């Protein structure tokens, strides 16, 4: 007795603070709490329904049974059992304070005590978002199994055969089955339970009073009292709120998951980029290693006579088209930041095993005048002398995928970057092509006939130097959208995106990067274009530069009258080329043999034999490199050197810092194409084999196996993949 009263005392303060509590409710709470250990056991039927919907999981039967019998008169006996635990706990704690421990303190207790120390130190931000909308306890009440109870109850009430609230019956009810009527007491008590535990505040007031009556009236007949109806409306509203709460919780969860997925995706992208960078680094390191190895070989074997290797076996190299270079040396006034090539060039796995030599061949109709490709095993565009339509090839299959229709005469220069292709033709026009749309030109076999017909028709009315009569132009240097023969069908011309007009004579060289294009033409000017608008931004007159050499330039003292036949000052420029290896020669008419730029620094090789360096912001040349005695046909520079080849059968390597010549390579015939990197120079020197000069070992070698049958004119390589085109109208692919 005493203990129970004590317990009741301790409970009293709790209960007194509960809102709207009445005496009986308190008792029930107490009894329930005390009897909790007893009721806290499994009910066998609950095992079966354990995984089903919470509505079936009514626990109240168990509690009901306990409570019905467990009125306060049983409290004493039951509490006697629970008392020892509580007493020990309480008493034990006090001695524990003084150092004695009779209670078994588990490690978990200590854990939480320690944890709480740490937790107490943590910061507590303001709750927001879901935390503010749906407090935890609300969510709890909305999602615990008992929250659906009221709906179950209502379902029963609508069922005419007043069913018993047994677990089994409820289950059957949920399935719409009927059950026997039984045990009204059980119902009534259960209803008490319902009310008590679901939504305390308002139901406490309506505890016992109308319930029994209401229930009995239910079970007796189908009359729903107003009390019952009101209760149902309350419950329904509450259930709706619970539903709303659950919905909020779920949508919050979903958005959290979405955020997590985004974060993980971003992380993955970053990791992939890191992976790419590492692979780039690996390639660079391989390159370095090879260079160092070669140097080592040279150092070690100074006594060995240098022999010229006639066929290359896997010269290990990895050169890349250098898109960005720190050219602080190029011009002291220009400050540029280094941009390294974007993305590594991956080779198909078999490439390394290819023997040096031909991978595939492509045929044209005449000697190849220009070629370029986007990447190894990517897309190749080639142009030849008699064909105004450059051909587009797929290097993976070796098949021709299309042609670029639009030019009216020979295409003399091509550059390909990814899917953008720029071609410059003898008609003075520069066309911008989208290589992805080349496939749109369906059935080009038939079209080509159309083209040729219209071409013929046009050629009669078209001037030699590019003024069109039937096709509208906007004047000099403006863009004509989708330029094509006007009478052709509208379906054609998917590929040509822009036509840049402005030059009056053949465009013999071009170079573009991102949105900036520089073209050099036989009208002795170079134009700078903006590719987004298609407008010519600047025109640089080489003639003027020749006659007004820059006063500050250290080497620009002599205007370029250096060799006979170069009527550079006036008139048409035409120089006979020295004979090729097969004896042929032709009149070389390209005044601007090659252009390349980076940032604001432009370099041009022209027919007077001078290599000029221009500042594209002012349009003025600030330096001239003299040395060649024939027109410069090809040119390339990087951060340290510029390499130029010319019809005077030589290749000169210039040091950009000093402007002096580092090296001169002499060949037997005119040099028409070259490309270099730190370790080698690959040149087309008017012979059948392709010449390779190793800059580290200073040795020459050539690619001959299965090579061209007539002199090589143009070439281009990326990493270990080399494409060359020759006068035999054949394009060959090599593995370096």
């Amino acid at each position, binding site marked *: 007795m005493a203990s129970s009263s004590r317990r009741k005392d301790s409970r009293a303060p709790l209960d007194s603070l509960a809102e709207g509590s009445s005496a009986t409710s308190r008792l029930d709470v107490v009894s*329930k709490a005390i009897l909790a250990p007893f009721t*806290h056991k499994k009910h066998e039927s609950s095992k079966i329904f354990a995984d089903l919907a919470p509505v079936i999981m009514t626990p109240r039967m168990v509690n009901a049974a306990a409570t019905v019998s467990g009125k306060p008169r049983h409290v004493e006996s039951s509490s006697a059992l629970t008392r020892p635990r509580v007493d020990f706990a309480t008493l034990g704690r006090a001695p524990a304070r003084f150092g004695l421990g009779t209670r078994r303190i588990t490690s978990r207790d200590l854990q939480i005590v320690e944890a709480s120390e740490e937790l107490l130190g943590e910061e507590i931000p303001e709750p927001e978002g879901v935390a503010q909308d749906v407090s935890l306890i609300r969510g709890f009440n909305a999602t615990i199994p008992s929250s659906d109870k009221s709906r179950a109850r209502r379902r029963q009430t609508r069922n005419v055969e007043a069913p018993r609230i047994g677990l089994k019956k409820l289950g059957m009810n949920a399935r719409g089955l009927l059950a026997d009527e039984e045990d009204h007491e059980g119902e009534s008590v259960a209803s008490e339970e319902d009310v008590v535990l679901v939504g305390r505040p308002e139901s406490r007031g309506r505890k016992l009073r109308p319930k029994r009556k209401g229930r009995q009236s239910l079970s007796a007949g189908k009359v729903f009292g107003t009390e019952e109806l009101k209760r149902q409306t309350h419950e329904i509203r509450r259930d709706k709120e619970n539903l709303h709460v659950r919905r909020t919780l779920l949508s919050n969860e979903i958005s959290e998951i979405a955020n997590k997925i985004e974060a993980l995706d971003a992380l993955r992208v970053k990791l992939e980029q890191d992976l790419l960078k590492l692979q780039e680094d690996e390639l660079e390191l391989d390159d370095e290693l090879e260079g160092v190895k070669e140097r080592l070989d040279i150092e070690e074997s100074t006594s060995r006579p240098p022999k010229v290797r006639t066929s290359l076996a896997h010269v290990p190299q990895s050169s890349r088209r250098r898109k960005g270079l720190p050219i602080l040396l190029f011009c002291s006034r220009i400050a540029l930041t280094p941009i390294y090539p974007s993305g590594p060039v991956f080779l198909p796995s078999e490439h390394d095993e290819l023997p040096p030599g031909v991978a595939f061949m492509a045929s044209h109709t005449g000697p190849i005048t220009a070629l370029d490709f986007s990447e190894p095993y990517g897309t190749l565009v080639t142009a030849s002398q008699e064909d105004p339509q450059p051909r587009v090839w797929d290097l993976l299959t070796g098949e021709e995928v299309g042609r670029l229709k639009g030019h009216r005469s020979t295409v003399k220069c091509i550059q390909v970057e990814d899917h953008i292709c720029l071609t410059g033709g003898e008609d003075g026009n520069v066309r911008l092509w989208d290589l992805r749309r080349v496939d749109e030109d369906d059935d080009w076999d038939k079209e080509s006939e159309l083209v040729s017909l219209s071409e013929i028709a046009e050629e009669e009315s078209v001037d030699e130097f590019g003024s069109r009569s039937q096709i509208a132009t906007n004047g000099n240097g403006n863009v004509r959208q989708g330029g094509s023969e006007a009478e052709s069908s509208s379906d054609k011309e998917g590929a040509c995106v822009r036509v840049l007009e402005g030059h009056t004579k053949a465009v013999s060289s071009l170079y573009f990067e991102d949105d900036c294009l520089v073209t050099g033409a036989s009208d002795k000017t170079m134009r700078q274009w903006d590719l987004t608008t298609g407008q010519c931004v600047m025109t640089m007159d080489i003639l003027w530069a020749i006659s007004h050499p820059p006063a500050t330039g250290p080497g620009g003292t002599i205007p370029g009258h250096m060799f006979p036949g170069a009527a550079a000052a006036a008139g048409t420029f035409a120089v006979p080329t020295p004979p090729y290896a097969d004896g042929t020669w032709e009149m070389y008419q390209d005044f601007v043999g090659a252009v390349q730029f980076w940032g604001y620094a432009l370099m041009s090789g022209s027919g007077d034999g001078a290599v000029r360096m221009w500042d594209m912001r002012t349009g003025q040349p600030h330096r001239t490199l003299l040395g060649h005695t024939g027109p410069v046909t090809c040119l390339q520079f990087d951060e340290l050197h510029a390499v130029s080849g010319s019809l005077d059968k030589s290749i000169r390597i210039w040091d950009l810092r000093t402007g002096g010549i580092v090296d001169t390579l002499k060949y037997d015939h005119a040099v028409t194409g070259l490309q270099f990197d730190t370790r080698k120079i690959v040149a087309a020197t008017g012979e059948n084999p392709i010449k390779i000069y190793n800059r580290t070992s200073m040795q020459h070698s050539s690619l001959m196996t299965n090579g061209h049958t007539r002199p090589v004119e143009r070439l281009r390589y990326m990493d270990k993949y080399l494409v060359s085109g020759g006068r035999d109208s054949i394009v060959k692919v090599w593995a370096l």
Partner: protein
Amino acid sequence: MPSELPYAADAEESLSYDELQVLRRQYEKEVAQSHVTVQTTFNFAWGLVKSPVKDDQVEGVKLLGELYRNEPARRRECLYYLALGHYKLGNYEQARRFNDLLLGKEPTNLQAQSLASLIERKVTQEGYIGMAIAGGAAALGTILLAAIIRRAHK
């Protein structure tokens, strides 16, 4: 905002074993999916705290602590539940500290205030008991001492 925290009495009402099992299973299912939602954790932890089994209460408090650590947005609510859990366990020291933190943030919180007074009462109760024991021990000691001295005098 009006506090929706339950009064301490709510913690004394326990869920039935079956309900607790349902909650436990839900929690474990989510752990197996390695995506545990806040609500499930809280449901389970609160069910555990409410139960009369001491070990369950300890586990519930542990879960609440984890929730506290992982979800900064929910910390303020968790303060209350942690205080309540510790109160039930008898760790009045921690209970008081958590509750004080909460009161610091929300001085007008009725539930927190009531919990504070409950803790006070418990603490003083324990103090009385302790004093009683101490007094008893002191009395015992005095008696023993007196007996020894008397014997010594004899």
